[in-house]
């Protein structure tokens, strides 16, 4: 057995190899290298690499840095992916090619770096596959060999993976016909309450989705290559382990993942959790409906006030004044309700507000702090206004010495008892014709509020007692889901 001819082996290695010294001058190059570069060894021997193949761009810098690193450290270095245009012959057309380059130190007897050997692999075809790929993960299988042999791709892949891992949208990769999780992003895990997914099929990991049509969809994607996209899809999903499924809304898509031969190997899942925005939109819809309802009801009330005022008051000027005063009373009550999100008002403030137009000395109030709901607020505001207007026209407030006393309390049955008592005014008697004010008082108290009304025309002035049952005035939570 003769001696092994290393030089010959070097020359016939199928991938391109070359060796440079510390000044980056060509020391050796094999046949594959010369074929790739379209030069003869005589043309390049002793020439500097970057003078022969100048590349002032990023790729040139990376190549130079890699060789320098090997020179300095004595450790091999790999460039996984390098765009490097070369001319296929001297003076020939320059062509964009992509390369993976491995630099290996060649040590002298002392162990210091004497030469650097470079092995390049033309990966232009891979690069084209990569450029054509739309779903990022589909390109991985085509590049598997590269990934395996290069640390840089591993690092890049780790970055890539981290990007998906931490993205705000959720991602998952399901493999095989039973849709086994092989990747799930952090946000996907959060979506499903941190359950164990990797290595489990969708049906195993999330039993609650089995009967909701998603597995059938995944089957279609896997078998037919169908792409499924959904917006605001509703599902019942366990969001916290051990708890009941919750209504969840998702925008999501399922894409088939294909290997280089076109065979479907899995399903790429991506999407965003829209539950909060769907809830917010629903709540907003509800609030708009409620607002619309209230505005329409208020307009109906205003319309009625106008119609009633015009019917009961023949004089146009008086009718206009009465209408404005009634609208004013309604408006004050609305402002008070608005201050408390239309929930309730404190009755003392309501009485005070509606009687604020009259002399302080002529109006007295007494009663505990009591809240009444919005419906009762509006009803009482209109009543107090009618009572006060009547007092100013015919009763205690029509003379300087007259006094109106308003008191309220809660009786043992929790009824709200409100008393209106006039003193010092002209003598009054029951009107012969029932006017708007008394019709309103009667209908509001006994009809609308379901309470009792006692009105007496005493020689000293009008006395009215309103007894309002708790169901009609106690504030209830606004029913917003």
């Amino acid at each position, binding site marked *: 057995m003769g001696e092994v001819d290393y030089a010959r082996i070097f020359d016939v290695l199928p991938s391109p190899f070359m060796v440079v010294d510390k000044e980056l001058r060509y020391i050796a190059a094999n046949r594959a290298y010369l074929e790739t570069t379209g030069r003869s060894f005589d043309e390049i021997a002793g020439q500097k690499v970057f003078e022969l193949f100048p590349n002032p761009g990023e790729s040139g810098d990376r190549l130079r840095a890699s060789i320098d690193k090997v020179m300095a450290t004595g450790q091999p270095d790999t460039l996984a992916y390098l765009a490097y245009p070369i001319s296929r012959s001297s003076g020939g057309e320059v062509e964009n090619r992509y390369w993976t380059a491995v630099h290996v130190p060649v040590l002298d007897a002392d162990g210091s770096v004497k030469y650097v050997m470079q092995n390049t692999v033309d990966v232009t075809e891979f690069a084209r596959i990569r450029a054509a790929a739309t779903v990022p993960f589909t390109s991985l299988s085509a590049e598997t060999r590269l990934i395996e042999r290069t640390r840089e791709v591993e690092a890049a892949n780790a970055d890539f993976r981290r990007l998906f891992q931490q993205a705000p949208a959720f991602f998952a990769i399901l493999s095989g016909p039973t849709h086994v999780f092989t990747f799930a992003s952090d946000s996907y895990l959060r979506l499903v309450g941190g359950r164990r997914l990797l290595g489990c099929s969708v049906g195993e990991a999330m039993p609650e989705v089995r009967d909701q049509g998603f597995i059938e969809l995944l089957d279609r994607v896997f078998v037919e290559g169908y792409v499924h996209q959904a917006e605001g899809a509703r599902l019942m999903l366990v969001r916290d382990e051990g708890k009941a499924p919750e209504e969840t809304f998702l925008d999501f898509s399922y894409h088939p993942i294909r290997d280089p031969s076109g065979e479907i190997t899995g399903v790429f899942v991506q999407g965003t959790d829209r539950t909060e925005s769907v809830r917010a939109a629903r709540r907003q819809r509800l609030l708009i*409906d409620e607002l*619309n*309802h*209230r*505005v*329409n*009801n208020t*307009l*109906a*009330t*205003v*319309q*009625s*006030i106008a*119609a*009633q005022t015009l*019917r009961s008051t023949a004089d146009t000027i008086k009718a206009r004044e009465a209408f404005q005063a009634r609208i004013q009373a309604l408006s004050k009550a609305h402002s008070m309700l608005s201050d408390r999100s239309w929930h309730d008002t404190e009755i003392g403030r309501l009485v005070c507000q509606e009687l604020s137009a009259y002399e302080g000395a002529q109006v007295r109030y007494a009663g505990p702090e009591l809240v009444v709901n919005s*419906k009762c607020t509006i*009803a009482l505001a*209109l009543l107090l206004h009618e009572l006060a207007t009547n007092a100013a026209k015919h009763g205690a407030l029509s003379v300087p010495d007259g006094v109106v006393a308003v008191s309220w309390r809660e009786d043992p049955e929790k009824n709200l008892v409100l008393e209106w008592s006039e003193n010092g005014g002209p003598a009054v008697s029951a009107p012969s014709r029932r006017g708007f004010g008394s*019709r*309103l008082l009667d*209908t*509001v108290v006994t*009809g*609308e509020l*379901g309470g009792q009304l006692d009105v007496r025309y005493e020689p000293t002035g009008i006395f009215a007692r309103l007894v309002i049952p708790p169901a*009609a005035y106690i504030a*209830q939570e606004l*029913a917003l889901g």
Partner: protein
Amino acid sequence: MAKFAGSRIFVVEDETLVLFNLEDILTDLGCEVAGQAMRLDKAVELAKTVGEVDAAILDVNIGGTTVFPAAQILAERGVPLLFATGYGRDGLPDEWQGHAVIVKPYSPQDVERALGPLLDKQ
């Protein structure tokens, strides 16, 4: 314009002023308000006990609840129903969509137009 002279109308409306207005509109149209309720309990009771009526005008939202329990009784009695609501037709659940609706605030003409076909069916 006693257009619907002698027609007997049952009314449910929880706001006094709106009720006054509706009563006046109905009176002007020649109708008789055969019964009126402002709260659900009274509306349900009257829906059962009120005599023959030609139509019912029902406010959908009454005092934080809905008029439908009373509407159900009236519908079973074969009384034509006209719903009044500040939400418009969208505020009416599917099962009541077949009935007439007027949107608050309504004019006398709205009431007349909506009530006419219900009384013609009699």
